[in-house]
């Protein structure tokens, strides 16, 4: 069923009783050409692009719970293409371009809202690093301008300019950055893939891989064995747990990132604002909640919950940056599992096991990457060659000595 204003009008007049399910609930077939393990944003995007752009058929997405119940439904909804390094920036720019045409493409309004992202700086060396980054953005056509303190004052008069411990000196602004209604991304991709015949198998947990002579032939699941020519893992925070079933150790640790939302407030913030002297970034949802976050808790965990020191640290950053939010109340806090890699950058690659592919290591930047991750993974699966913007996102890059370390934090996942 195609969604448009007319369908809403028609349904509205007939009690909204004619809406069809957004996707089917099929039973697993014995075999598929491609099985995507993980029904999160990236997995569903991969299925969507495989079926819609690469003409592939006979695809299943297996998901242990409900689709979209992982990070795509528990992130802070930011999109941006303001990276620095050659291994990353063209990839994120592709992602941004896909976001920009996504809704018409998959006929679902995910509320892509390019209200801009403001990265504040507080020192000359931060300014210089942002200049280097801003110039890298221009090399990929991503845009971006440096704003003076006066320009920021005009845009966000409520920031603490006059009594700050670390005064705001300027900012890097990317107008094309913004937010997207995160759940809708998963649903839109799922619906689009389903319409092309992709089987979305919910409550179907992978419990093992069928590996025969170094070649992966399928997966064992809670709904039985399913054979496949290619198995594409895409499970974010569960990467370590799932790939260990294939006997693989990864350059990844699982950590928790907490996110926060305030009660609904009348619109105040123009776009996304990130604090340069503490761990805090914030945007305001279309419903009015301030959606904000900060640093990861910093210890290995598979529990989707965090602890108080980080909650306080994040709110301290918020109050230091915009002291008007003191009386706004934090409504909900939750945790998402982050597949923190050794250099802060992701992987989209084959593994050493034939037919087994891996997509992960997104750290806490996975949401904005969703379309490009799906597109590039689909490219790899369909053509068995990496997409041109994903050629550096390889598992062997540490062995080769070529990390993609945007922050320069080194091989310690919790510092990225």
């Amino acid at each position, binding site marked *: 069923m195609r969604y448009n204003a007319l369908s809403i009008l028609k349904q509205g007049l007939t009690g909204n009783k004619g809406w069809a399910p957004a996707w089917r609930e099929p039973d697993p077939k014995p075999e598929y050409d491609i099985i995507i393990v993980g029904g999160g944003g990236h997995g569903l995007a991969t299925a969507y692009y495989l079926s819609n752009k690469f003409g592939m058929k006979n695809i299943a997405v297996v998901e242990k719970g409900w689709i979209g119940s992982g990070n795509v439904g528990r992130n802070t909804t930011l999109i941006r293409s303001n990276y620095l390094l050659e291994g990353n920036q063209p990839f994120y720019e592709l992602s941004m371009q896909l976001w920009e045409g996504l809704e018409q493409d998959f006929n679902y309004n995910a509320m892509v809202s390019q209200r801009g992202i403001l990265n504040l700086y507080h020192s000359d060396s931060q300014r210089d690093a942002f200049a280097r980054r801003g110039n890298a953005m221009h090399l990929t056509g991503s845009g971006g301008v440096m704003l003076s303190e006066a320009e920021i004052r005009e845009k966000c008069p409520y920031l603490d300019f006059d009594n700050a411990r670390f005064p705001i000196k300027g900012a890097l602004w990317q107008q094309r950055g913004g937010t997207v209604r995160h759940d809708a991304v998963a649903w839109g991709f799922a619906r689009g893939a389903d319409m092309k015949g992709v089987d979305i198998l919910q409550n179907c947990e992978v419990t093992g891989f069928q590996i025969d002579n170094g070649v992966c032939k399928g997966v064992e699941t809670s709904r039985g064995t399913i054979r496949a020519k290619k198995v594409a893992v895409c499970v974010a925070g569960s990467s370590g747990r799932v790939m260990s079933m294939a006997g693989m150790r990864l350059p990844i640790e699982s950590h928790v990132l907490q996110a926060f939302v305030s009660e609904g*407030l009348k619109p105040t913030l123009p776009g996304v604002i990130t604090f340069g002297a503490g761990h805090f970034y914030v945007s305001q949802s279309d419903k009015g909640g301030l959606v904000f976050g900060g640093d990861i808790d910093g210890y290995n965990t598979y529990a989707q919950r965090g*602890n108080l020191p980080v909650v306080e640290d994040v709110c301290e950053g918020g109050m230091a940056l915009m002291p008007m939010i003191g009386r706004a109340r*934090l*409504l909900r806090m939750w945790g998402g599992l982050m597949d923190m890699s050794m250099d802060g950058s992701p992987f989209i690659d084959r593994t050493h096991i034939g037919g087994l592919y891996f997509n992960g290591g997104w750290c806490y930047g996975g949401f904005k990457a969703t379309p490009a991750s799906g597109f590039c993974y689909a490219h790899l699966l369909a053509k068995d060659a990496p997409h041109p913007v994903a050629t550096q996102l390889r598992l062997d890059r540490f062995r080769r000595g070529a990390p993609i370390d945007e922050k320069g934090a080194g091989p310690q996942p919790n510092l990225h």
Partner: protein
Amino acid sequence: MSQSNRIDGGQIDRSRTLKFQFNERWLTAHPGDTLASALLANAVRLVGRSFKYHRPRGIFSAGSEEPSALVQLRKGAALEPNTRATTIEMFEGLSATSQNHRGSLEHDILAVNDLLSPFLSAGFYYKTFMWPKAFWEKLYEPIIRSAAGLGKLSGMEDPDTYDHGYLHCDVVIIGAGPAGLAAALAAGRAGLRVILADEDFRMGGRLNAETYAVDGMDGADWALGVIAELAIMNNVRLMKRTTIYGAYDHGIFGALERMTDHLPDSGDKPRQVLWRIYSKRAILAAGATERSMAFGNNDRPGIMLAGSVRTYVNRFGVAPGRKIAVFTNNDDGLKTAEDLRAKGIDVTRIIDAREGDVVVNTNGRKGLNTIFLNRGRHVEADCLAVSGGWSPNVHLSSHHRGRPEWRDDIAAFVPGGELPPGMVVAGAAAGTMTLAATLAEGHEVATRVATDLGKSGSLATAPRASDEIFATAPIWHVKESKHRAWVDLQNDVTTKDITQSYREGFRSVEHLKRYTTLGMATEQGKTSNMLGLAVMADASGKTIPETGTTIFRPPYSPVAIGAFAGRARGKNFRPTRRTPSHNWANENGASFVEAGMWKRAEWYARPGEKSWRDSVDREVKATRNGVGICDVTTLGKIDIQGHDAAEFINKIYANAFLKLPTGKVRYGLMLREDGTVYDDGTTARLSETHFVMTTTTANAVLVLRNLEFARQCLWPDLDVHLISTTDAWAQFSVAGPKSRALMQKVVDDLDLSNEAFPFMACTTCTVFGGTPARLFRISFSGELAYEIAVPARYGDAMIRAMMAAGEELDLTPYGTEALGVMRIEKGHVAGNELNGQTDARMIGLGNMVSRKKDFIGAALLDRPEQVREDGLQLVGLRPIDQDVILTAGAHFFVEGDPEDMAHDQGWMTSVAYSPELGHSIGLGFLKRGRDRHGERLRAFSPIRGQDVMVEVCSPHHIDPEGDRQRG
């Protein structure tokens, strides 16, 4: 109008009358009222508007579960949006305004949304607003956003303060209702360290709202007696107005105590204190929340929870209506009628669903006036008390891994699965729905905890009460009703939205919530989740537990962001570190720059200097031509001692250190294990077993941490000991051709000739006639230079004495900017180059790295990408047009190449204006840079609007041979 709905009784202080404002109208109340009870007393029924359809909203409950009666409290900068009228304690002069309406509360223009509701059903926005593409951001979204949100922020800094605190106890008891009080009494008498916390400003919970007797007396009086006994126990801390909002790992609970919210202003005290409670055990006695039923137009002002109606009548002495009907599926509803009649209030009808009577629709635009029953009957009423049963407040039990379990007998979820370790549940929160059993359970659970923790337990017996009957029939949704029936009163989620959600495949609880926004309101689903789940179960033909469960995340109720931040805001966001010469610098025109937590002098402006560049140029010239002084205390200093200290340091640095002689300093390069440069600095050997290592300012703490790791985890048997002395020594760099002359005046009896004290020498000595000191001949500026350190207590006196001694040499203080200029002139790398992406090869120090020993970083130096021929290398840059001021961050391109990443040659890391050379200079990383000196390149910086030609040169812009520093 003076409290026309006030009736007899209640726990309010009628001897005093308070004045308050609602929407600019003055009304009266009494101490002990909430804003909600006061509004009801004054017959104010319409208090707000719902989120989506802007339907009129009244007061629905009497506690923190309130979804409807949200107001903006106070005025100006203290404006507090979305505040529940039911939890606002009345104070003199209180001011509140309604929110989320365009125009007046009574005539809200956006109420038109209600007429459009057929087209605004669940998820409508995902299906439209997509064409034409540009219209979403230009038209649709701005319209949606302009209507979004509930209350508003003041836009001004929060005028109040907040604090944090830490409490420790054996057992924290969450909730001071009958179960909590019984538990606290038993635990307190057993000698446990007890914290009893309750969100209300009056402890007692439902005992204050009901008419039960305990131990032969009125329940509320019994509660007062217990509280009085607990108050005099030293081992018990009573915390009213305190919400335990979250259960964290290992017995840590988050609590918010509202210190001054019940006062007209905070004075100079914090408004709220956020406590971190460390407990060995926890007793969850948080009670239960009553739920509604879904029937046609069940959202009108005047339709309330039955238990809340009893609260208003019994605790606050307020009649929520004059003609009240009761709609119930359990015995609690009948109790309501009894209590109302006891107060002489007209109960117009008891509609008991268990007898087949149901409400199908209601009428009354801004307040209920008529109730329509099945079989065509109707009743006049201005208030409908609805009782759909009670849901245990399982929230904190599910903050870890707990998954609530269904109990058919009470038609509710109770705590289940893996509770937070150490937590037990008592009373209604555990599904124990009658008073006598609740009291007994509270007592028993606390006694068990006491025994567990090694206390003999209380000898006293449990309090007694007669048990009431509790019988419920799970009726959730009146299906005969053809009208919209609300599930989530705030977000306007109706039963139709839920059935549509089911139809469209959003069937798991998580999908349901996300698709319909059910439970996303400010009451976090307290009144709506259970009902929504039941309607979904009905749609799918499954049971409720098959359909899902309701788990909750912190906070239990919303907490002010300011409270989480505590004191850390403004200038106190982070501590400030000051150098020993700070006061002196301040007196001498310094402006300060943030360097981590430090404040450092960046330059010393003198009268007549027009810009910072004037000051910096002068400081550089004075240093290079005469002598300058700079406070370098901020560099990290680590005292390293032990018989194996030399061996230890040799394992840490990439270059050789084993044979550094006593009395010498050496530059050290520290790598990460992946071969990347981590830090650099100088290390001095003061004796065979004693070294002093310096680190960069930024890495002082991190290097000590890594050294401790190496010492304890990698080489635990080396005899080596570490302690930071960063703060212990005031250290000054004295640089310039006249520095020797100056130092000769400063230090006592020491030959400073080049022969006696050459470049890279160090010694302990005294200065100015006996003050102990350390002297190093090291140079960052490239000039003849020294660093002199004295105990920090003498730092202030030292800079003053030095300046006096240097007067005849025109000793010039210089700041970090001049320091930066001189290091760029010399081609020394600093933070902009050593950014964690740089290896020794890139900065020309590849040969310094030892190939003859193991050290941190030794094994991963030669991977293929690290030894690429076209790798980045440090170069100097100068503008072709000498008037051009270079900027950092520019990327290099060969002229004519396209400006894309494939042709990117590198970037400018640091720039400075060199007064000696008379033009701008830079450092940068360039592919194959060392082979390209003399080449002309574009320095392309679109982000700064700059595109200039530069010539590649040696990074050593000045004195490349280093003669000056050795002179």
